[in-house]
């Protein structure tokens, strides 16, 4: 080549010019907290198991095992969880939240279909822990304690384990074969179960049987009663008993017209159950408005689809032998219902009260040293009661109540019990550095509308307790998992590597491992801007 003077030279290098010296800020790879996992009451690392599931195939089992690290009931939660993860999901700002709950159910069902099991590799500790109550909190605690090598006995007053998962949630939301299979997997870890064995005096049990620790998870099994003037012939029952009796094989006589009093999820369950038991009219009477109803909107919509009727702003004044007298309410300035004095009649053959649930603390015995407050057992943040070695969680402690919350209590209490038994100080709670939607660069993600699970046809819902919501298949589950934006966590897309104008991002061997060559990184921040997941941040250079 006849090279032009000066402007064209032989090969050279500008590597001697360490442009990193210009930098005032440097890019740092970070792992932020994803909103989904942060919102999960069971403490699942949702983002990570979605990432596992995104590879499909063997990835499904990896994903399932990661769920099982925190929650032994993915198939149950994939059906009954109210998925606060999806409410928190950043993708909701973009189009619709990732269908985390449906993917979890798919993984849970895959595990059942393939018979995946969990082994406890822990060395037996020789410590014995009593769990009182076999609901989600108790079984979750039993699972995590057993996996830590403790000998666990679950004592249950009912003839079958499962607690409110069995006696509170109707089968059309949670088929019993799914529940039984997930419970069996927990018990197969070597957990001893004693059913039909109510604890009546905790102090005595602790004193006589030599337990090293106990976890109290008896739930809130009593339907809340309210005083209603009622004619002697009136059929008034409570929702908890109705649902419980049904599970025991009873077929309660509700009549053709059923009124349900209350506005929570249990009221909806009772009304929908009544429809399935043959009621032509199932009417929910609630004192406030739809917007202020504590029941989940999805459940209300399902109930309406199935023909359940709602009487908003109504209270039951009295029950007569063939119906109710209802008083109309109106909301005051503060949004509280106030009586108006206007009444109307509602024909009803029976009234089901669904006004909340109370705990039954009689098992504590008279001389218990445990501090209780307003019907709940007092606990500290580690779920320890005022009596050393005794912990409590689930519905029996104060706070919000749900299956998933109870599962989370069980796990965290098991960790506390394990710490206590080992004489360890509890590990500090991990710092939360939430990945905000604004940190993402969503341009890089493909448009992908959410998949919705198919549902049982309406005609079959009025007469059977068949499961309503169907699962995803392999394709749709994979698609849904791949909608995850991986908020705050590198997923090895190579954007930083490809975009760096200084070639200062060095890719190490394994996928997703990058380092920044600080000799040449000028701190331009392009990688931060172009990271789809918000997993890189700029920090001021130390001077």
């Amino acid at each position: 080549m006849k090279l032009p003077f000066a402007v064209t030279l032989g090969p050279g290098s500008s590597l001697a010019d360490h442009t990193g010296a210009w930098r005032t800020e440097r890019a740092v790879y970070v792992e932020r907290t994803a909103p989904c996992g942060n919102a999960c009451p069971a403490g699942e690392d949702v983002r990570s198991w979605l990432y596992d599931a995104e590879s499909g195939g063997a990835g499904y089992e990896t994903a399932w095992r990661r769920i099982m690290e925190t929650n032994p009931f993915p198939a149950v939660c994939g059906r009954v969880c109210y998925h606060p993860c999806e409410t928190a999901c950043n993708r909701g700002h973009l189009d619709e939240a990732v269908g985390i709950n449906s993917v979890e159910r798919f993984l849970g069902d895959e595990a059942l279909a393939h018979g995946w099991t969990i082994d406890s590799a822990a060395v037996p500790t020789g410590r014995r822990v009593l769990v009182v109550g076999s609901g989600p909190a108790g079984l979750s605690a039993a699972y995590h304690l057993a996996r830590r090598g403790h000998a666990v006995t679950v004592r249950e007053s009912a003839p079958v384990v499962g607690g409110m998962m069995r006696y509170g949630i109707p089968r059309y939301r949670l088929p019993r074969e799914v529940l039984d299979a997930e419970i069996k997997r927990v018990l197969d870890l070597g957990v001893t179960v004693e059913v039909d064995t109510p604890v009546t005096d905790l102090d005595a049990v602790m004193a006589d049987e030599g337990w090293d620790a106990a976890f109290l998870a008896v739930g809130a099994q009593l339907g809340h009663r309210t005083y209603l003037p009622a004619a002697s012939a009136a059929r008034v029952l409570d929702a908890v008993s109705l649902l419980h009796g049904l599970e025991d094989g009873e077929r309660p006589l509700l009549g053709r017209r059923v009124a349900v009093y209350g506005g929570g999820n249990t009221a909806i369950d009772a009304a929908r159950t009544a429809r399935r038991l043959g009621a032509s009219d199932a009417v929910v009477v609630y004192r406030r408005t739809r917007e202020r109803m504590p029941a989940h909107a999805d459940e209300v919509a399902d109930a309406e689809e199935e023909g359940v009727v709602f009487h908003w702003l109504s209270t039951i004044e009295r029950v007569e032998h063939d119906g109710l007298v209802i008083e109309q309410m109106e909301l005051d300035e503060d949004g509280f219902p106030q009586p108006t004095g206007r009444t109307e009649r509602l024909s009803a053959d029976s009234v089901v009260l669904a006004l909340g649930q109370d705990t039954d603390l009689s098992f504590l015995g008279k001389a218990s040293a445990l501090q209780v407050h307003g019907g709940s057992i007092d606990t500290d943040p580690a779920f320890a009661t005022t009596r050393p070695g005794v912990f409590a969680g689930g519905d029996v402690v104060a706070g919000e109540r749900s299956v998933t919350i109870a599962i989370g209590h069980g796990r965290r209490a098991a960790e506390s019990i394990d710490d206590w038994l080992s004489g360890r100080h509890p590990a500090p709670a991990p710092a939360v550095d939430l990945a905000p939607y604004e940190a993402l660069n969503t341009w890089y993600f493909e448009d992908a509308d959410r998949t919705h699970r198919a549902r049982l046809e309406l005609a079959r819902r009025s007469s059977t307790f068949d499961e309503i919501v169907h699962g995803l298949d392999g394709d749709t589950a994979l698609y849904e998992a791949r909608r995850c934006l991986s908020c705050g966590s590198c997923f090895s897309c190579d954007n930083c590597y490809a975009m760096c104008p200084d070639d200062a991002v060095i890719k190490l061997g394994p996928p997703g491992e990058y380092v920044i060559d600080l000799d040449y990184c000028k701190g331009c921040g392009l990688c931060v801007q172009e990271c789809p997941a918000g997993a890189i941040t700029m920090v001021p250079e130390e001077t």
Partner: protein
Amino acid sequence: MLRQVEGSRAVAETVARCRPHVVAAYPISPQTHIVEALSELVGSGDLTACEYLTVESEFGALSACIGASAAGARAYTATASQGILFMAEALPNASGLGLPMVMTVANRALGAPINIWNDHSDALSQRDAGWLMLFASSNQEAVDLHVQAFALAERLSLPVMVCMDGFVLTHAVEEIDVPGQDEVDAFLPPFRARQWLDPDEPVTIGAMVGPEAFTEVKYLMAHRQLRALDDVSQVARDFAAAFGRDSGGLLRPYRTADADVVVVALGSVLGSLADVVDELRDEGLAVGALGVTCYRPWPLDEVRRALREVPRVVVLNRAFAVGSGSILGQDVRLSVPAATKVHDVVLGLGGRPLTHDVLRRLVLDVVAGQVGSDTLTFYDLDHQRVATELARELADVPSAGGAS
């Protein structure tokens, strides 16, 4: 073979026959038809072995051509008006690095005010960018200049701009002889780059040059530009021999012998000008015209020779240097004896028609002594409108004391 065809289409087909490896362009009126036609030719498979890059801007277009040329590819782009200004950063890079390529400029006014019509302010604003600048006086010449431009660019290793009047030429359908593929292949050898980027034989193109050598690099570049005058003439002679018609070259004189008045101009106005010259010659006036085909490098000696004996020279400026004077006129003034009267005239801006009548009146006014030779004359100006507006502007100026 002569056929009725739009100027843009004819240029596009000609460019295609020059077998560019890369076409990168961003559409802008009145250049659009050219690049649309080229994209069609690539899309239809008529132009093979060519990468058509749809870029995001003119800056991207020229930058892509620079990269392509540095990699040893024959590159082509086209633009107009503000489009060439958007290329301005990259224009001296192409020339400074000695990267051959061809660019059509479909001449259009510069805004603001926005105006899509023809004048020469776009190309002339970039007259110092180091590119060769050829102006076509007709669509036939526009076609022929493109073939010559590739030959020149690659012979000199310099970029070449071919300017053709927007709409007047680009959108005119007329009889044009578009050179056949065989003819072009015979005339234009395959591109062999002077320098190219090759991973097997690496070089550094565009290294930083400091004060110790910068002046020398610039001098060599300017020297190469001036030397190019010989090549422009030679390529035009070769073209005439191969294709049997005169196109290109440095200047296009028309009946300048013994002329008392010669009108100097760039571009397509030369056609009408020739008609006016014929008419006035018939009426006994010794008038001629001088078309400047090669504007950069400026053929100083040739212009001097052509105008040496001419007492009055009229320069048609279709662009001017605001706050200074004319552009073409300044080049002409430097090329004529001091005694020559140079009537520097601005007209035909932003598409204002340069008709036969306007040109005839201009020459007659010059002959009648009604057009000055000391200052720039805006010949087709609406003086009344300007006077009104100036008066209005002056009325708006507050008096020194602040009171009115």
